[in-house]
């Protein structure tokens, strides 16, 4: 148990998406890419680390070419399992290969206002409110910074966002919006204060950090520097590739997997070379470019296949995986959102991705919707039930009750039925009412999800952050703000 957090565990379903040979070929191809074509690391510290370990570094192009054995040896040092710690320890999340946890999606830029229904620019208050709702929902295991606090200064925005989440939830926080040295240092300091000490933070990292790679075959300098700072402090650090078929990656799926893999494992290897044994994770949200608009689709069969295949790669390297699922390209909670988010979540779950990112955003991770968030939670709950599979044993075969009822009759009045009926899945938002009731009421999933979100927001009181600690965190943020000349 992880508090009341729901996860997928002990799955009874599995999928063979890549054979051992396929994985080996992808791995060899990846090493060949890193060794012959190289990966761009536009960070002075990163280039120094690579050079010190014998990789070939071109300081002008900032391209690193590393031999396969260097990458393989480095990756072996990565821990295969560890916990993401929560402010309240019973909500710690074991990333042990036998759990799938869901987070909120992150970095949205607009919010569909819960009360007016209007779309507007996101602000700090939204970050806190979304965190409060997520704190309540058992399907949400951890937070990403769901939307950006655009009413706060860019240089410290990521820190205000962290504080807002800690003030509204006891669950683990993973940020994808800290990507500069100054912010990363301050974020580590803040996490240290929350955990109690540097040592405590190392043991129970209440914060983890996710960075994007820069496909094709590149890294972002600020992100790499920030990740190195986080890894030094023992914060779990992950790199996500978003290589898209036809634009930032080859159009063919295998080639796209190889390019993304080269980006991610080269970054993870760098972290291991710098801080051997530091907790790291593989992250991916690959997709296919839309051929007509160039858009990042955030859905479709290619995404679903990537969702399952990537976990095979992460397993091969024996590190946890954070997989992009949900994150539909739909503009509102609708048919498209339902298909995208169900299929992607199912495929990433059947492969037992450790973290799924995440619930709540529409329009390719741009617009926050509380309704979508709650319906996404329902999708996860359904997938979770499916993953539990079919148990065949004496009790579930129910031979004696079958004998008792015999041909004809029904099972309604059986004690066996009452004993097991709560194993059947019940929806919160699917409409199973009679037709005429639906016709008369004229409401549906979106209305119910909206009402539930309002209820949670208006009534749920998360365990507050100690006032002294909150003041200290605010001071830390201030110091970053005053260090930056206006």
């Amino acid at each position, binding site marked *: 148990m992880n508090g009341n957090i729901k996860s997928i565990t002990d799955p009874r379903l599995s999928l063979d998406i890549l054979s051992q040979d396929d994985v080996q070929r992808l791995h060899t191809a990846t090493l060949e890419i890193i060794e012959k074509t190289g990966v761009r690391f536009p960070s002075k510290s990163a280039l120094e680390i690579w050079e010190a370990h014998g990789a070939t570094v071109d300081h002008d192009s900032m391209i690193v070419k590393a031999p396969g054995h260097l990458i393989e040896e480095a990756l072996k040092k990565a821990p295969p399992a560890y916990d993401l710690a929560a402010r309240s320890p019973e909500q710690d999340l074991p990333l042990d290969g036998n759990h799938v946890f869901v987070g909120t999606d992150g970095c949205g830029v607009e919010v569909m206002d819960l009360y007016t229904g209007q779309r507007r620019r996101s602000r700090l208050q939204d970050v806190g409110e979304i965190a409060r709702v997520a704190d309540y929902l058992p399907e949400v295991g951890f937070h990403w910074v769901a939307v950006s606090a655009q009413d706060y200064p860019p240089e410290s925005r990521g820190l205000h966002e962290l504080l807002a989440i800690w003030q509204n939830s006891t669950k683990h926080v993973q940020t994808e919006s800290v990507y500069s040295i100054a912010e990363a240092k301050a974020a580590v300091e803040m996490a240290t204060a929350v955990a109690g000490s540097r040592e405590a933070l190392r043991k129970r990292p209440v914060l983890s950090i996710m960075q994007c790679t*820069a496909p094709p075959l590149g890294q972002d300098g600020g992100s790499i520097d920030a990740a190195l700072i986080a890894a030094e402090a023992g914060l779990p650090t992950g790199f996500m590739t978003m290589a898209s078929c036809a634009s930032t990656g080859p159009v063919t799926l295998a080639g796209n997997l190889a390019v993304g893999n080269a980006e991610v494992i080269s970054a993870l290897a760098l972290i291991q070379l710098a801080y051997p044994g530091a907790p790291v994770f593989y992250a991916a949200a690959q997709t296919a470019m839309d051929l*007509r608009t160039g858009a990042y689709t955030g859905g479709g069969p290619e995404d679903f296949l990537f969702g399952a295949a990537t976990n095979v790669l992460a397993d091969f390297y024996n590190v946890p995986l954070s997989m992009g699922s949900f994150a539909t390209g739909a503009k509102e909670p609708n048919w498209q959102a339902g298909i995208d988010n169900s299929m992607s979540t199912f495929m990433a779950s059947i492969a037992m991705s450790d973290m799924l990112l995440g619930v709540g955003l529409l329009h390719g991770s741009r617009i926050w919707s509380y309704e979508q968030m709650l319906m996404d939670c329902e999708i996860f709950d359904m997938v979770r039930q499916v993953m539990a599979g079919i148990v065949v044993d004496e009790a579930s075969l129910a031979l004696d009750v079958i004998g008792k009822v015999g041909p004809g009759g029904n099972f309604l009045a059986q004690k066996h039925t009452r004993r097991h009926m709560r194993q059947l899945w019940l929806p919160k938002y699917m409409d199973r009412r009679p037709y005429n009731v639906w016709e008369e009421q004229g409401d549906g999933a979106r209305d119910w999800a909206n009402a539930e979100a309002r209820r949670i927001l208006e009534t749920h009181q998360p365990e507050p952050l100690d006032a002294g600690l909150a003041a200290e965190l605010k001071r830390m943020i201030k110091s970053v703000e005053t260090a930056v000349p206006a």
Partner: protein
Amino acid sequence: MNETLFEAMKQSIIDGEAEDAERLANQAVAEGVDPLEAINKGFVLGLDDVGEQFGCGEMFLPDLVLAAEAMKTAVAILEPELAKKGTAREILGTVVMGTVEGDIHDIGKTLVATMLSASGFKVYDLGVNVAIGAFAEKAREVGADIVGVSSLLTTTMVRQRFVIEALDDMGLRPQVKVMVGGAPVTRDWVAEIGADGYSEDAIGAVAVAKRLVGK
């Protein structure tokens, strides 16, 4: 007499074969074909055809980008010939564009740049992570009609305003128009920073750019 050559030129663009386009452009130069005719009666027709096929969903973005690349190759060979004759290809306007400092999102900006150049604009693509001052300096250097600033991050979107201020400081406004775009950019933001236009996609960006240069 040049009809077959023009037809081959058109086809090279439709096929998106830069090497063919290059060979045919060189052939035109060697045979003394009027370079402006080669462009307007040959290559451009190919681009029009691709545009039409894209419009009705028969061709896709990669077709468009390949065609634009082939076109660029041909024009690069023919332009010096035009200059020798003291003429120039008619262009709709000159655009300087890039993704702003601190931001490495590339694809959207590149698509917009490609579509603009395929539509007859002269485009200087400064790449990603472009310093504020570099937009204004380049605009002055090449006499730009439009400066295009792409930002995909809320943290870098604020710098679109700084680009406008830099253009102001150099006395280039309001003659030089500013067009912005990217995931977080909304109509309200455009009004707030006093930009002249924005678009949510590359096709729309062409229409906006045309409007800004009065075409």
